[in-house]
């Protein structure tokens, strides 16, 4: 989701601390005991920043540290902003996004992470399917039922499936797809003698029906009463293969039975014996070779599954050609083939649109979030899937000031420095004129219950090739506490009028003065001169030195088109890289406040900077990126 201009992103400091930093590990180890002095943390970052360069919003690393403010959390124990990379998640509950029912965690795995009720997604277009009756005119809502997609008009009739009742569709569907001789499936009659090794809905299962049983001459093992039926579906085949290989592993590790003797290897070994022999017999055998009493002359060999009982499925050699012929036939065509996206969630055998089965809805989760370093819970939502409330929610927005911006619309008369032609209207932030200064109102709103002192710092010229000049007219200011709203109401009642509401047109931005101030917010003016894009560099070059904007604007306006064209054909360095024309301003924010730490007094002692009895001086510093707009090319 790209944001419309203007936006403010906040950089999580975790990107600055490299992963194998020993000091970080030490800190994280100590922090649960609350013994570490937590105060130096922001200062450490300050030092880091001083050593390094200013934050470059366009650096490749910045992509990973910049977050919209509402996605950030705040750990009260570490006193630090936490981004989605600094947290761990724990699943609270699973729920179906369609019916919003919770699935108990014991059932999640058995249901394959999918809804066990009537929620299905269209296999063709992923839209949710609805259960509809075929008898619309009846009025008594009876008759066969189908799943139909309201988006692409796919129905289960396309694959020849109808349901007898509108409830428990998933069980009905599972029954149909596992039992081949269902009356609803009219398309093919599958012989029951040898199981169809695939879903009965796959069109070419009829090919496999003619497949002679693999190892048909081989007699079935008598000592295997459980496998009376041959596995039919993929899942059953997988289960058969799994048990087979488990048995193989067990058989080869337990005893020195001759591996060639298949009948013996199939017998399920005594569990206790197997466990015992894992720790005694095999190890001794492995160590000393023939030292064991049950000495083996040769190591046991695991064999592969060879019969259909064991889950082996051999496609008929002609099945591939049959598929190809079907693809080439006229009634299939391109539309008859399932796309890669459709096949991704289907059985691997599904090649055609007719093979696609409705997909039960994937479950979603509600998760609680913990700080990765100190393991404190930062976010804990209510358990109920439909609830939107939180038991614990430590979001960064309730700690760091929320920055909003809007362009300052200047009256045409008072602005002497600006060209008076079009400055009265709001500047188009999607097409900022290069070298024409604009002024923005940057409002910081405090959500803490303590007043905060803010220091803003920004490089005078933005990093990157498009050098825009930035000036914060009042870089240091205070923001009031987020006190009771009634206080403000009473104050504004006593005060005759607030300066903000009088008339913004009469004010002029002055250096060193805040523009406006409210109960818990302060507005300062940010003056930005958008830089010239590289394609225009030749002409704009003159204008950068002297701040004569009128001439420069005219020049660039005249020559914009020609230069841009030539820039594209010439040097790649002269071309504008993608999003290089976005005017991003890095701003370093440092906030100081005195917090009343009566909640956990041991932290106040640990910080060692307690001023009074219960007041602790805190500070927090971070980089913020203000996206002002896009420079017109």
């Amino acid at each position, binding site marked *: 989701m790209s944001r419309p201009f203007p936006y403010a992103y906040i950089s999580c400091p975790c990107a600055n601390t490299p992963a194998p930093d020993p000091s970080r590990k030490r800190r994280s180890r100590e922090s649960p005991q609350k013994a570490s002095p937590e105060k130096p943390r922001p200062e450490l970052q300050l030092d880091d920043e001083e050593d390094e360069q200013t934050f470059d919003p366009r650096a490749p690393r910045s992509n990973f540290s910049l977050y919209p403010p*509402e996605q950030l959390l705040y750990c009260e124990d570490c006193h630090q902003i936490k981004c989605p990379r600094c947290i761990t998640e724990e699943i609270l509950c699973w729920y179906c996004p369609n019916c919003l029912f919770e699935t108990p965690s014991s059932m999640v795995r058995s249901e394959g992470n999918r809804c066990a009720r009537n929620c299905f997604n269209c296999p063709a277009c992923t839209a*949710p399917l609805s259960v509809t009756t075929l008898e*619309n*005119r009846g009025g008594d809502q009876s008759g066969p039922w189908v799943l139909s997609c*309201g988006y692409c008009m796919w129905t289960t009739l396309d694959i020849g499936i109808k349901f007898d009742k509108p409830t428990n569709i998933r069980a009905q569907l599972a029954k149909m797809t596992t039992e081949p001789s269902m009356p609803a499936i009219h398309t093919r009659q599958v012989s029951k003698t040898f199981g169809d090794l695939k879903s009965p809905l796959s069109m070419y299962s009829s090919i496999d029906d003619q497949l002679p049983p693999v190892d048909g001459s081989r007699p079935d093992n008598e000592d295997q009463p459980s496998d009376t039926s041959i596995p039919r579906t993929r899942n059953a085949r997988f289960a058969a293969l799994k048990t087979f290989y488990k048995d193989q592993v067990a058989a080869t590790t337990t005893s020195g039975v001759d591996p060639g003797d298949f009948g013996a290897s199939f017998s399920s070994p005594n569990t206790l014996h197997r466990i015992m022999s894992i720790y005694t017999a095999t190890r001794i055998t492995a160590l000393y070779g023939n030292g064991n009493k049950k000495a083996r002359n040769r190591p046991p060999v695991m064999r592969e599954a060879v019969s259909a009982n064991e889950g082996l499925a051999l496609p008929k050699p002609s099945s591939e050609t049959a598929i190809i012929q079907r693809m080439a036939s006229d009634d299939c065509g391109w539309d008859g083939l399932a796309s890669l996206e459709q096949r991704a969630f289907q059985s691997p055998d599904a090649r055609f649109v007719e093979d696609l089965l409705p997909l039960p809805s994937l479950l979603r989760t509600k998760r609680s979030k913990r700080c990765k370093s100190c393991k404190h819970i930062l976010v804990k939502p209510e358990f109920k899937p439909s609830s939107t409330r939180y038991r614990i929610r430590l979001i960064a*927005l309730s700690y760091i000031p929320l920055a909003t911006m809007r362009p300052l619309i200047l009256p045409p008369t008072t602005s002497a420095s600006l060209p008076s032609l079009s400055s009265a209207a709001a500047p188009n932030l999607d097409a900022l004129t290069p070298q024409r200064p604009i002024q923005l109102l940057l409002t910081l709103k405090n959500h803490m219950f303590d007043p905060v002192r803010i220091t803003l710092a920004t490089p005078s010229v933005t990093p990157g090739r498009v050098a825009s000049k930035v000036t914060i007219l009042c870089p240091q200011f205070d923001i009031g506490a987020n006190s009771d709203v009634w206080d403000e109401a009473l104050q504004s009642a006593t005060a005759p009028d607030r300066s903000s509401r009088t008339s913004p047109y009469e004010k002029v931005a002055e250096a060193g003065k805040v523009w406006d101030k409210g109960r818990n917010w302060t507005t300062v003016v940010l003056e930005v001169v958008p830089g010239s894009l590289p394609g225009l560099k030749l002409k704009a070059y003159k204008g950068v030195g002297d701040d004569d904007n009128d001439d420069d604007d005219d020049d660039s306006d005249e020559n914009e088109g020609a230069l841009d064209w030539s820039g594209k054909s010439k040097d790649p360095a002269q071309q504008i890289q993608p999003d290089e024309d976005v005017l991003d301003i890095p701003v370093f924010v440092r906030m100081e406040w005195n917090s009343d730490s009566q909640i956990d007094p041991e932290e106040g002692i640990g910080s060692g900077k307690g001023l009074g009895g219960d007041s602790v001086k805190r500070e927090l510093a971070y980089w913020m990126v203000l996206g002002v707009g896009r420079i017109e090319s």
Partner: protein
Amino acid sequence: MPPKAAKGEYIETDTGNKISRRSQIHGTQHIILGGKSIIQADAVIRGDLFRTSSSSASTPDSKSDPKAAAGGAGNSIAITIGRYSYISRSAILRPPSRLHRGVHSYFPLKIGDHVFVGERSVVEAASVGNHVHIGKDAVIGSMAILKEFAYVLDGAVVPAGMVVPSWCVVGGAPARIVGEVGEGYGVEGAEGGMARERYRMVR
């Protein structure tokens, strides 16, 4: 950032709703506005498509002329919009409809508080929860349910009958869940909590 309208563009009701004079609202007696909601120019709100109650079940033809039936069933509500909701330019709100017992009938469209409906979007949802954001050029299919804090991206086509759970971001055609909004979404003044600010900007 909504475009600033000319003076006198909006009619302000007693409860603070600001309704553009250029909006097209049909069947006003079947529409409930919670107050402080904004309806911009060229928005179409079809209050005339309300559920013709049991009397119309016998005569399904009455849906072809709903305005004639409007006088008969004056108490049926077609569209409910909560407080601080914002209907952008050229958006269309239509009550959802479906075949119910063989009769094509309309169902009420409920829109919660702090809802944003983007430009040129078509909403036929059954219910739109609080703090839902619907981007521009989006289509919300008939009988869809958008739970609280759902976020519909620009140009998304939410299929008919889809349920978008809370905090989920949906996009694409057909829409599917592509992500979740952050925990701070909907905080006053931040992303998702700009409804009061938007209301203030409109004059």
